[in-house]
């Protein structure tokens, strides 16, 4: 709770900086502020409390994920410095929006009431719509913002409709009360229908097949930093929220009572397989790196959805997977930001010869791609390992084999980029060593490898 208040306060501060004319100091102060929030959040870890009539419920799950979100936001804010160099007048807006977005994200994993959940999702989404369209003179960015807004508000509508139906069935918005009454034998059919609508809305936010069509266009059109935010922070928030909804509302037990569990599992398996396969196969053909990472994100969403099959045991696995994926994503995007800062597109040709001109950044990008592909010692490998282990334990060996085949396919496009960096001749001069980009890239990849070397640190948090 304190975390949420502190984040909101920090956001307001960021807006005040504009008035106080302290634009130059905004990035360092915000990073320091967020570090303070992280410390605050760390202190809350392990306590179980609810605030304001159970509107907000702080638990291990919520604090652990909030910490991840805060870390990701720190990286994203650090990257803002160079990205918005050409628009110095608006930088406090951009930073403030990111901080508010974080507030929405934290609300989404610590809600105790469906109203709070919806509030969180809207804070996050509206901030994202604005950021997607933030390059306002660029027609592509406008298109991305518009597309995202239309599709996103539609999804929000569906979620809201689902919440209403659940209220109709249960007579309450409160998660703990729903949790209890979800087990009663006589549930109106509105409850599962409402659930389906909410899950559909969340799958849209996660960008899982078949609700993924917005993702590639929006990712490609948005400014690169926004894409970084969407593919790391926003995706992680959405999947964590979906997980929390399903575990918080006791969906599994309730569906089992009504003999619907099997259907639910079949649907999850199908969506997960479809997301992995479609994402990977489409990514093979992309030449734009942002678009490629969008499809790769869709396939990773498929992997993360596998945790929904073992909700009771896999919170730690999900946390680990999201952390590994998001850290690799941040590292990859910081290199993309550096390479494509003066380009009007993010095509693979821009990366030619990066291994010669910038060995360090090329190594970071290689490491992050290897992590996403699931090569050992990077945390991406352990994430997949724990996930597969969990899923085989639950008896879905077929699903794991499909996931393994998909991992192999994914090597094809990740390595396309690696090959471009190391075996093609450089086609442009790359000057300047922006400190914050370098620092973000190196720190995030080091964190990624550290997670790989000591997986228990994160994995055992949610026991």
């Amino acid at each position: 709770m304190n975390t949420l208040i502190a984040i909101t306060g920090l956001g307001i501060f960021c807006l005040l900086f504009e008035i106080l004319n302290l634009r130059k100091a905004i990035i360092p102060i915000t990073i320091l502020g967020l570090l303070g929030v992280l410390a605050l959040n760390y202190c809350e870890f392990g306590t179980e409390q609810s605030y304001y009539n159970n509107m907000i419920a702080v638990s291990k799950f919520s604090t652990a994920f909030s910490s991840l979100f805060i870390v990701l936001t720190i990286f994203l804010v650090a990257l803002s410095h160079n990205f918005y160099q050409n628009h110095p007048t608006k930088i406090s807006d951009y930073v403030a929006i990111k901080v508010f977005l974080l507030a929405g994200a934290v609300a989404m994993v610590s809600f105790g009431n469906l109203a709070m959940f919806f509030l969180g999702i809207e804070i996050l989404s509206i901030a994202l719509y604005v950021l997607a369209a933030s390059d306002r003179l660029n027609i592509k960015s406008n298109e991305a913002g518009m597309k995202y807004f239309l599709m996103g508000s539609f999804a929000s509508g569906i979620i809201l409709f689902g919440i209403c139906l659940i209220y109709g069935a249960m007579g309450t918005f409160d998660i703990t009360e729903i949790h209890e009454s979800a087990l009663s034998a006589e549930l109106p059919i509105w409850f599962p229908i409402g659930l389906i609508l909410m899950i559909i809305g969340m799958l849209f936010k996660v960008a899982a097949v078949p609700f993924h069509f917005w993702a590639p266009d929006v990712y490609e059109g948005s400014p690169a930093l926004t894409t970084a935010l969407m593919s790391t922070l926003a995706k992680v928030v959405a999947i964590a929220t979906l997980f929390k909804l399903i575990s918080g509302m006791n969906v599994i037990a309730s569906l089992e009572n009504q003999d619907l569990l099997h259907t639910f599992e079949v649907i999850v398996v199908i969506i997960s397989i479809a997301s992995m396969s479609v994402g990977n196969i489409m990514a093979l053909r992309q030449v734009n790196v942002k678009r490629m990472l969008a499809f790769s994100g869709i396939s990773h969403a498929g992997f993360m959805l596998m945790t929904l099959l073992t909700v009771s045991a896999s919170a730690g696995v999900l946390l680990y997977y999201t952390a590994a994926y998001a850290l690799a994503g941040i590292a990859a995007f910081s290199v993309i930001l550096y390479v494509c800062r003066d380009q009007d597109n993010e095509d693979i040709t821009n990366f030619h010869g990066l291994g010669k001109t910038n060995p360090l950044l090329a190594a970071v990008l290689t490491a992050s791609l290897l992590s996403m592909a699931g090569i050992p010692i990077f945390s991406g490998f352990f994430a997949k390992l724990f996930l597969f282990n969990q899923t085989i334990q639950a008896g879905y060996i077929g699903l794991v084999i499909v996931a393994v085949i998909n991992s192999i396919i994914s090597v094809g496009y990740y390595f396309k980029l690696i090959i471009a960096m190391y075996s093609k001749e450089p086609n442009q001069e790359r000057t300047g060593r922006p400190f914050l980009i370098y620092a973000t890239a190196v720190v995030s990849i080091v964190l990624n490898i550290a997670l790989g070397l000591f997986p228990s640190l994160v994995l055992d948090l949610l026991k």
Partner: protein
Amino acid sequence: MNVSTILIILLIGAFATYFSGDKLASKVALLFSLAALGCSIVLLNNYNAGENISVINSWITQPKISFALNADGLGLAMVLLTAALTPIIIFSSFGNEYKNSKNFYALILFMSFAMTGTFLASDGLLYYIFWELALIPIYFIALIWGNGDAEERRKAVIKFFIYTLAGSLFMLTAFIYLYQKAGSFLIEDLYKVNLSACEQFWIFLAFFLAYAIKIPIIPFHTWQANVYQKAPTVGTMLLSGIMLKMGLYSVLRWQLPLAPIAAKEYMYIFIALGIAGVIYGSIVALRQKDLKKLLAYSSLAHVGLIAAGSYTLTLDGFRGAVMQMIAHGFVVVGLFFAAEVIFRRYETREIEEMGGIRAQSPKFTSMFLILVLASVALPSTFNFVGEFTVLYSLSQVNIWFAILGGTTIILGAYYMLRMFQHVMLGETNSKAFADVTLNEGISFAVIIAVLLFFGFYPKPITDLITPSLENILQVINKN
């Protein structure tokens, strides 16, 4: 002092090489690889004296994964092979200039680190991690420092990477499945799991996919010749000398004991695949015009025979296979080095364009001849000991296997000697052939000395490996 010391030396060596700069890199790498060799010899002594040099530490609690390195005779033999070949390979590259040599040599040491780890790991997951780690350096070595057209090289290397990764991911699935049954990744616990015949069949197949691609066994060999040809010679030596032994070693250590029923039931099929590799490799080698490709196919033939020996599930088969692994490791490194020595002078790998070297460099010719004869398993070389034992074990299973497998010696003699004739004898080449330098001579001399010494006196190696092979056989035959 325990076996992790070797790993630490090699890992520190990789970093030290990277930070020592381009000029010193090769020497620093050589120094660290020699240190690792010294360390492994000391450890061998300690092991023979009965000391416990294994390590076991818990690493991840849930799922239970340990940092467990177990050194038995078989593992140590393979570690010694790696530790002995790495300095030779590094030393043999002193005559070449590499761009960014600090990265190059650091990757070689890192690869040596990962391969040593693979031979030592006794926790399934740790083993898998080392196994995969070894793939990354060789990928970059072949991609960045390889030769030939860049576009073709890219294709060959990415094919190799995806092939091997695909195979090993199925092995990972098998490991996870076994973990569900055993509750631990430790090899002792995995050995104890009782699986039905059907489960064993799938486990066996998953492992087979990983190893058949790495070794390579027909029909999974298609990546091999191209990568051997395109990779820099150092990479080819690492691949053929040590890395493919990872696959063969793993067959003995992991695949057969984990799925013994399947191994017995389908023995004939897998021996037949190995023998098919022998015949196919030999026949294709006959037609090769590129020296490196010819050696690649001859390697395919020899490795097929080793695999067939391992699948016989007899002590002789195992022993012959391990000895032949070591012998083949040395001889193939020597032969590829000879190809490199010729390339340094003639700038070509086409057999047609060579010839008449004997008249100009008798020293090189005689060394090359010894290597060629060792490769065709002439008695008194180490290869003869290995190959003969394997053929003997095959004859115990079925005499036809031995007869067909024996073609490796006949056909091998034919294509190797024909190659020797074209490359070394005949008309004097218009281009001059400088005599071997001291550095090159030392590398050759070491390899030849090892091959001849163990050819006459293989007892130290058989004594080292036999007890652990007997243990493995015991696990296989327990049910």
